[in-house]
C-alpha cells in the first residue's frame, strides 16, 4: 500500500460503487432503486473528480460535472416523475428470489475480479486495480436487468451498466476523449426519453409495466 490518500479514497469510492450495485440488486422498491441509482452516480462523479485532481487530467472534470448533473440530478428526478405519473411505486417482483440473486451476484464478482486481474496488469494507470470493480458493476447491473420483470428497473439496470462502463473507462484509461463522453451522455439521455415513451405505450397496451406481457406478442 504505497498509494497516496486521494487514490485510497478512489479505491474506497470504487468499493462503495460495488456496494451500491449490490444494494440495487437487493432493493425491492422502485423509489429506493432510483435513490440508489442517484447515489451510485454521486460516487462515480466524486471518484472521477478525484482521479482528475490527482492526475491532472482536466477533461475528467467535465465528465464528472456531466455525471453529476445528468445521473445524480436530472435522471433520478425524471424517473421519480415518471413513477408518480404511472403510479408504479410499489414493490418490484424479481423473477428469481433475492438471496439467490445475491449469490449469483457474488459469483459474478469473483469472475469479474479474476477476469480483470490480467487486464489491469497491462494498464499503466495508477487506478488500474479498480478495473475489476468496474467490470463487476457492469455484470451486476446486467444481472439486475435479467432478473427484473418490470420496465423501470430494467432501464435503471441499463443505466447502472453505463455507470460501470464509465468507471472502467476512468480507471483503466483516464476516461475517453471528451467528444466520445459527450456523445455517450447524449445517447443515454435520448435512450431514457425514448424508453419512457415506451413505458407509456406499454402501459397503455397492457395496463401494466410488466414486460412478461410482451411475450404474448407472438406471431402464430
Amino acid at each position, binding site marked *: *500500500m504505497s498509494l497516496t*490518500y486521494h487514490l*485510497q*479514497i478512489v*479505491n*474506497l469510492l*470504487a*468499493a*462503495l460503487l*460495488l*456496494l451500491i450495485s*449490490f444494494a440495487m440488486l*437487493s432493493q425491492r422498491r422502485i423509489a429506493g432503486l432510483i435513490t440508489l441509482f442517484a447515489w451510485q452516480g454521486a460516487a462515480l462523479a466524486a471518484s472521477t473528480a478525484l482521479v482528475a485532481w490527482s492526475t491532472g487530467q482536466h477533461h475528467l472534470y467535465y465528465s464528472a460535472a456531466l455525471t453529476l448533473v445528468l445521473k445524480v440530478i436530472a435522471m433520478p428526478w425524471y424517473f421519480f416523475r415518471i413513477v408518480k405519473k404511472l403510479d408504479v411505486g410499489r414493490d418490484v417482483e424479481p423473477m428469481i428470489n*433475492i*438471496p439467490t440473486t*445475491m*449469490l449469483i*451476484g*457474488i459469483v459474478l*464478482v*469473483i469472475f469479474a*475480479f479474476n477476469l480483470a*486481474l490480467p487486464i489491469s496488469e497491462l494498464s499503466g494507470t495508477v487506478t488500474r*486495480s*479498480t478495473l*475489476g*470493480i468496474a467490470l463487476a458493476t457492469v455484470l451486476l447491473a446486467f444481472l439486475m436487468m435479467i432478473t427484473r420483470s418490470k420496465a423501470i428497473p430494467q432501464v435503471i439496470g441499463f443505466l447502472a451498466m453505463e455507470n460501470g462502463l464509465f468507471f472502467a473507462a476512468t480507471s483503466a484509461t483516464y476516461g475517453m476523449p471528451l467528444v466520445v463522453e459527450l456523445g455517450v451522455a447524449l445517447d443515454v439521455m435520448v435512450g431514457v426519453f425514448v424508453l419512457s415513451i415506451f413505458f407509456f405505450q406499454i402501459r397503455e397496451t397492457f395496463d401494466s409495466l410488466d414486460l412478461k406481457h410482451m411475450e404474448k406478442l407472438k406471431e402464430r
Partner: protein
Amino acid sequence: MSTGILLQLAQTLLAILLAPLLMGWVNQCRAWLQGRSAPPITQPYRTLKKLFHKDAVIAHNASPLFRFAPYMIFACMALAAGLVPTIVNDLPFSPAADVIALVGIFALARVFLALAAMDIGTSFGTLGARREMLVSFLAEPALLMVFFTASLISQSTELPIIVQTLAHQEFAIYPSLAFAAVAFWMISVAENARIPVDNPSTHLELTMIHEAMILEYSARHLALIEWAVALKLFTYSALGIALFLPWGIAEQGDISALPLALVAMVAKLLLGGAVLAFIETISAKVRLFRAPEFLGTAFLLAVLGMLIHFLLEV
C-alpha cells in the same frame, strides 16, 4: 506487569459496570426519537437492583442446568468483555484468546441460554431457542468472515495486533473494512436481539426470539441474564470500535494516554448508541423468515470485503 494486571482488572470491571449504562442510553435515545418521555439513563441499574432483591421462583421440573445457566452466561460475557481492548491495548489477559476463540465464547453462552430455555419444556422456551439457533448459525460464519477480513490486513487473528496495525501504524484507508463494518453492524443487530431481527421490548409470541427464551427466569437469575445482555451489547460495541474506529485506544504501557482513551471511548459509545437507536427507530422489524435473507446479506458483504482486500489492498 502488575500495572498491566491492574489495568486489565480495571478495564473489565469498568465494562461490567458501564454496560447497563449503555443500555440505558440506547433506551433513552430511542424514547426521544419516538417522542416518548425517556426513562432515566440509570433505569437498567434500578431494574437490576429490583430483580436482585426479589425471591427467585423456579419451576419444579427445572434441572440444575437451569439454575447454573445464568451464571455461566454472565461469566462468558464478562470474559469476552475482558478480552476486547476498550481503553488499553494488549493487556496481559488478551493473549488468552484470539478473535476465533471470542466467537467461541459467544457461542458457549448461546448454547447454555438455548439449553436452559428448553430445560423447563414450555413451548415458548423451545420456540425461542430454535429461533435463536436459526439466527445465530447464520450470523456466526458472517462474524468469522468479518474477523478474517481484519486478520488479513493485520496478518494476525490476535485482537491486540489488529488494533495495533489499524490504530498505531501509518494511516491507510481500507475499502474492505468498510464492507466488513456494514456486515458487522448487521451481525451485531442480529446477535443482540435488536430491530430489525428481534425486538427487545416485545412479548408477542409470533415475533419474540430472545425474550421467549428467558420467560421462565425471575429475580437474580433474570437480573444476571439482563446484565449479560447489556454486557453483550457493550462487548459488541467495543469490538466494533476496536476493529473499525480504533483511534484513541491507548498503547500498552502508555499511561499518559489513558484519560484521552477513556474520553474517546465514552464519546464513541455515546455516538454508537445514538446511531443504533436511530436505525432502530427508522426500520421495521422484519418477519422471522426474512432474517436468513438479512444475515445472508451480512455474510455476502463480509465475503465481498475479503475479495476487495485481495483486489485492492495486496
